[in-house]
Structures are given as C-alpha cells and as structure tokens.
C-alpha cells in the first residue's frame, strides 16, 4: 500500500462537498455480498513479513550483556531441561529461549536481581548436594535437584526460594518457547492470517457437545 501523505488519503471528492445530510447519505450500505466474494475483495492487501528490524533502542539493548558466560550456560541447560526436544519439536535452545531471557533482563530490569540470585541459589544448592555447579552435574543430578523445586506442592519449606525462582524461570521458558516459530507450530496454532470465518468445524462442536442448532434463530455472516 502506498504510504499516504499526511497519514491518509486526501483526494478531494466532490461528493463530500454537498454538506450535511447529503454527504452522510453518500456513506450508505453496500449490498451484501456472498462470503466468497467478501473473501476475495480486491481491497484486501495483506503484507505479511516474517523478518524484523530492531529499533535503535532495542539494538542498544541487544548489544549490552547481562548474563556472564557461566550464567548463560546455566540458563541454557535449565531451559532445555524444562522444554526438551521430542518427536514433535526441538528444545528451548533451538527456539531461542536463552537469548529471549537475556533480552528480557535488559528490557525489564526489575527481573534482574531475582534471576541472577536464583541462578546463584541453584549453583550453591548444587555445590551443597553434589559438590559442583549445576551445569557440571550429570543430567541425573540436575533432575534430582529440579525434583526438589519443580513441584511447589510437595517441595520442602527450606526450598521455597528455589521453588519461587523456578516458577518464574519456567514462565519465561514457556513464553520464549511457545511464542517462537517452532513453539507456535508445536501448538498447532493456525491463525494470524486473512480468512473467512465460517464457524467452528463439526468435530470441534462434537467434542464440546454443542451445536449451531442452539443458535438457529440467528442469521450469521
């Protein structure tokens, strides 16, 4: 679409010059078209772009570093334990989750202390139990530690800070993964596209035990 001057189309149209009610009458109903015609309406122009350009401010944030190398390694290991690869999709790392968390620490700095402190808490607890940092542990040891903080209801009271950190971290991983391209495909979200809504399909209605017969008194688009 041509970028309009002054934000919009300023073509002068004589039909608007009549003033008052006459002008209002020029904006009246267009005869209803069938849904197929509507879907093909030539005025629809859908520019879909998958790339993005960073704003100057965001570029600056990108260039800053929050996590040190060890922290980033810990974030990556932890994120992949939370969302591992399986036969349907890749792991958190493949979805760019560590980079997303790194960015959010700078974009929303109020998360910084809890995140940094939580990662340190994890290492200290790991040293206490296995005499090495979290990333140096075997996967079995890592899971042994996660089992103590990943289930809030059964976690011991002395692990409450770890539980709290893990709840927050899990939320970051979930957002990072399921808003990524592979995560959205994994969920089978099918949308964000021009289409012609014709209601929910019969198998969905059947699954929920509902029917369009329940609203048969209405005329829908």
């Amino acid at each position: 679409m041509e970028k309009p001057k002054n934000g919009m189309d300023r073509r002068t149209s004589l039909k608007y010059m009549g003033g008052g009610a006459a002008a209002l009458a020029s904006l009246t109903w267009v005869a209803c078209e069938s849904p197929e015609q509507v879907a093909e309406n030539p005025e629809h122009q859908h520019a879909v772009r998958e790339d993005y350009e960073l704003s100057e401010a965001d570029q600056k944030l990108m260039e800053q570093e929050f996590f040190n190398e060890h922290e980033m390694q810990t974030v990556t290991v932890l994120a992949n334990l939370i969302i591992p690869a399986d036969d349907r999709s890749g792991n958190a790392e493949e979805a760019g989750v560590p980079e997303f968390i790194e960015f959010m620490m700078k974009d929303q700095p109020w998360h910084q202390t809890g995140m940094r402190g939580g990662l340190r808490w994890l290492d200290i607890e790991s040293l206490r139990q296995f005499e090495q940092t979290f990333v140096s542990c075997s996967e079995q040891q890592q899971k042994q530690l996660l089992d103590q903080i990943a289930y809030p209801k059964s976690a011991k009271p002395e692990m409450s800070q770890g539980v709290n950190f893990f709840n927050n971290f899990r939320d970051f991983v979930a957002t990072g993964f399921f808003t990524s391209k592979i995560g959205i495909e994994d969920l089978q979200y099918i949308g964000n596209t021009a289409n012609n809504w014709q209601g929910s399909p019969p198998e969905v209605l059947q699954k929920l035990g509902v029917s369009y017969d329940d609203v048969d008194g209405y005329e829908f688009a």
Partner: protein
Amino acid sequence: MQIKESSTVYDVCIVGSGAGGGMAAKTLSEAGAKVALLEAGPMFDSAQGDMFKWPYQSPRRGAGTHRPFGEFDAAFGGWDIKGEPYTRVAGTQFDWFRSRMLGGRTNHWGRISLRFGEKDFKRKSVDGLGDDWPISYTDIKPYYDRIDKMIGVFGVNHDRSLGLDNEPDGHFLPPPKPRAYELLVKKACDQLDVPVVPSRLSILTRPVGKRAACHYCSQCNRGCSTHSNFSSPSVLIPPALETGNVTLITNAMAREVLTDDEGLATGVSYISKDDNMEYVVKAKAVVLAASACETARLMLNSKSSRHPNGLGNSSGMVGKYLMDSTGGDLGGIFPQMMDGIPYNEDGVGGMHMYMPWWIDNQKAKLDFPRGYHIEIWGGRSMPSYGFAGGIQGYNGWFTEGGGGERPEGGGGYGAQLKNDYRRFYGASVGFSGRGEPVALESNYCEIDPGVVDQWGIPVLRFNYVWSDYEILQAKHMQDTFEEIIHTMGGRLLWNKAGKESNYGLHAPGRIIHEVGVARMGKDAKKAPVNEYCQAFDCKNLFVADGASFVSMADKNPTWTILALSLRTSEYIIDQKKKGNI
C-alpha cells in the same frame, strides 16, 4: 517567548481527534465549516499497524514493556506518559489512560458498540440515585441509527422474549458465527437463565462504503490494514479531510481556551510538540473533545475575569461526577477443551457472543443498583507474551487421559510439562464484567495547585473512591462467573476474589471508560453544559467527548459519544444558520 498567532479565523476549533472530535470534524467540515483540528499526538493510520506480526518478530515477543496492552498494540500512550503527570488525593485512586495519536483511544478499544437504552438515560427515575439526563433515548435514537449505518456494526436485534428491554434495536450487519466455546458458555448459561447473545462490535462483516469486510485475523487492537474495524482515523478523519475544509494540526498540546471580554471563546492556545513553540489558533466556536478529563482540565485551566472558576464552570461542577466502568474478571479451565482439535479459531478481534445485563435490580432486590454486561474470552488464540504463566497452579488437574504420572502438585519440567502446555493450550475461557458505577459528586478531578506538566500546564489531581454499590456489584460478578464456570464443567483458573480485594474490582480508570466531569443538565447551577453539550456560560463552547455524560450505563461509551457528537455538531450548524453563535 513569542506566541505565534495566525491571522486565519476558523469557524470551529476542535480539540481532540478521537470518537467525539473525529465525528465533529466530519460533520462540521461536510457542512462547509472551516475547521482547525488539534491533536496532541502524531499522525496515525491503522493500515500501518503491526497486524499479522508474529511474536517472534520481536526480541521481547510482544511484551508490554512500552505499551500496556503489548508491543504490537496500536494505541500509543497508556496510564503513565513521560512528562505528562497527574496526581491523586491521598487514599483515593484513579489511573488515567491517554492515547496521544490521531484518533486517540478509538485505536485501542475492543469495538464493543452498545447503545444506551431508555432506562440508562433515566436512572434517577428508576432507582433514585444520581440524576436523569435532560434527554431521553428518543432524542438520541436517530443519531444512533445514522451512526450504525455510517460506521457499520454487527449484531442482532434481541428476541423480546429474552427480556433485554434496555438493549435497543439497531441497524446491524450480520454477526459472525459463535466460536464453539462460546456455544459451550451459552449452553451453561441457558440453564442459569443468563442470556448469551451475538455481540455488537463495530467490525465490518460486510463491506461498507470504501471499507472492506473483516478478514478475521483477530488482531483488531493492532490496527486494521483494511480499515474494517472502526477507529476515528479509519472512518471519520478521511472524509473530513476530503472536504478540504479541515486543517489538521498534530502534536498540538492544547493549553487553554481563549476568551474575549464578553466571555466568549475566541480560540485555543497550544504548544507544538514539533518545535516546542506556543501557538494560538483563532476560531468562532470551540469544541472540546480531548477525552473527558482532558476536556475538564482545559476548562478549568481557562480562567479569566469573566470565568474566574474556569471556563463554563459557574456551576462549580466541572470535574465533578467522574465515572469509569466497573470491571472484574475470572477465568476457568475446561477438561472437554483440553487436547483441542487444531483449527483457525481467530474470528473477529473480540467476542462473538456476550451477555448483556439480564436482571432488574429492583425486582430482584439486589443489594446494588446498577448492572454489568459480561464479555467472553479464551480459546485457541495466538500464543503471546505471558503464555501459560503460572502453570504450576493447574497442570496437576485433569491428569487422566494423558496427564501422566507426576509427583504431588503442579509444575514440573521436561517431557511431562511440555505435553501439559500442549494439552492445556486453548482450554481456558474467561469472563470480564463491565458495569455501571453510580455518579457521585465526590468522585472528581481538579487542578493540582502545585504541579505542572513538562509544558507548564497545571495537571489534574484525581479523587475517586468506589462506593459499596460498585463493590457489591463486583461480588455479584465473581459469584456469577464462578457459577457459569462450574456449570460448564470447569475449574477456576485462579482464586475467586474476596472482600479483602473489593471482590476483584479494578481500580477506577483501569477500564478506560472515563466519562462525566462536564455533565449536561437543564439547570445551569447544577451542570456545565445543556442538552446539546453547549456551555451554559459560554454559548460558543461545546463538549463532544464523554464529559457530558450524566450517568454511565453498563455499556461501552463510544457509541453514545459518537451519537452525542453528531447531535451537537448539527446543533452548532443550526445555531450558526440562525445567527445565534
């Protein structure tokens, strides 16, 4: 400092380009008036919005770091704007949302377009509280009718047997078919005698004029590439500009309305955010449509010997009777919606069905006087920032049929958790109540004597406290939502709000329906403007936003703002012809 004054004298200067200002600009310019239209924000065309973007096209995945409703939301601004503070009287609360852009908050809202009904204009006659409007539904109906046709709104005229007698008929485009989960809501509500009916949104399901029909991408809040939903820059401003009669001045922050020795308005002074200079635009009449509180601020800041309490404020009522809709929410998770069948459930950007207020407060002997409508949300929407947050609170539920073994309690990690996210995606439905507060003189905004904004304009200080009426209404919302969720066979997604949190009642200002503060009336001692939104004390000053509302219905205010603005604009034309202004 120099004040730049153009020699041009416009017929009308309009402050604000949202629903009220846009409608006034269109109506007046089409009638031949030379109009100066001031907007405090930049140009905006919703076709340039972020529709169709994916969350991964941003490193923050759409987080609302800079905009309250997410990175891709069309509305610039929010509750806090740098350099534009406001204050509150201690112990009171009001959060003031402003959109600084062409079209203002019409770029933000959910396009819920509801007419006020007969009772909404006569609440005092119904329950003895507040005041009746000086006009009735009959006075405003013709304007609603024209706006329905001019702008386009889908919906239905309600079946009389549903008893929704305060929900007037309109001229509707056909509504979109309900989503499956909305039918599930209806099925439960049929048992509870809560009517679930097609919603009324100003989104085109058929082409209107030059505007194409909706293409169901569901991202109305990001701006619409085809102008298929209503916003002022999509629908009202273009025809206004096409007349050639409108001089649009953006980035113009109005300072005050200027008056002459007779006390009549002569124009508006403003600061240009482009060059930081002071300007004056001269006009024979002034229409304030800056958003209710900004309009009150302008009136109160426009003091002169003829108007010592502020322009149009001999009643002392400018700023008083501030209202915002009540709001409360509750969500549920539904086992029958888990492991959902993938399909495109987007639809229009908003609910396809909703529940208008269905109870007669007096007959039902409720302990609060005014009603609320219920909005429905949920389903398989685009995953976004905050996805499945707090899953440890619920993923231990419904473990049969694929939930798998797990230690006690929710949360977890690994293959089990990944699968839980998949199972629970699209399985929640939530309810938001939006209701009517009672207009109280004690809820107000005023000029803070000690604080100015970055341009030296004295700022507003708010004083707003919910009364028991609103709090008890919020309790009724929570009880109703819980009953619906349980009847649907679900579990509450979070704890129902109790007394300690005012039953989940949002702070005033959070629903972004500010109205009142320059209410209309028959008596100049009790109201700043008359039934045509003309200031009693200044016959060439008008308000055309939500400021003139006497009471707030349980409905979104935009359709009524549009109708009143159209009516006021035609009154201005009529008065001009008669030589009265």
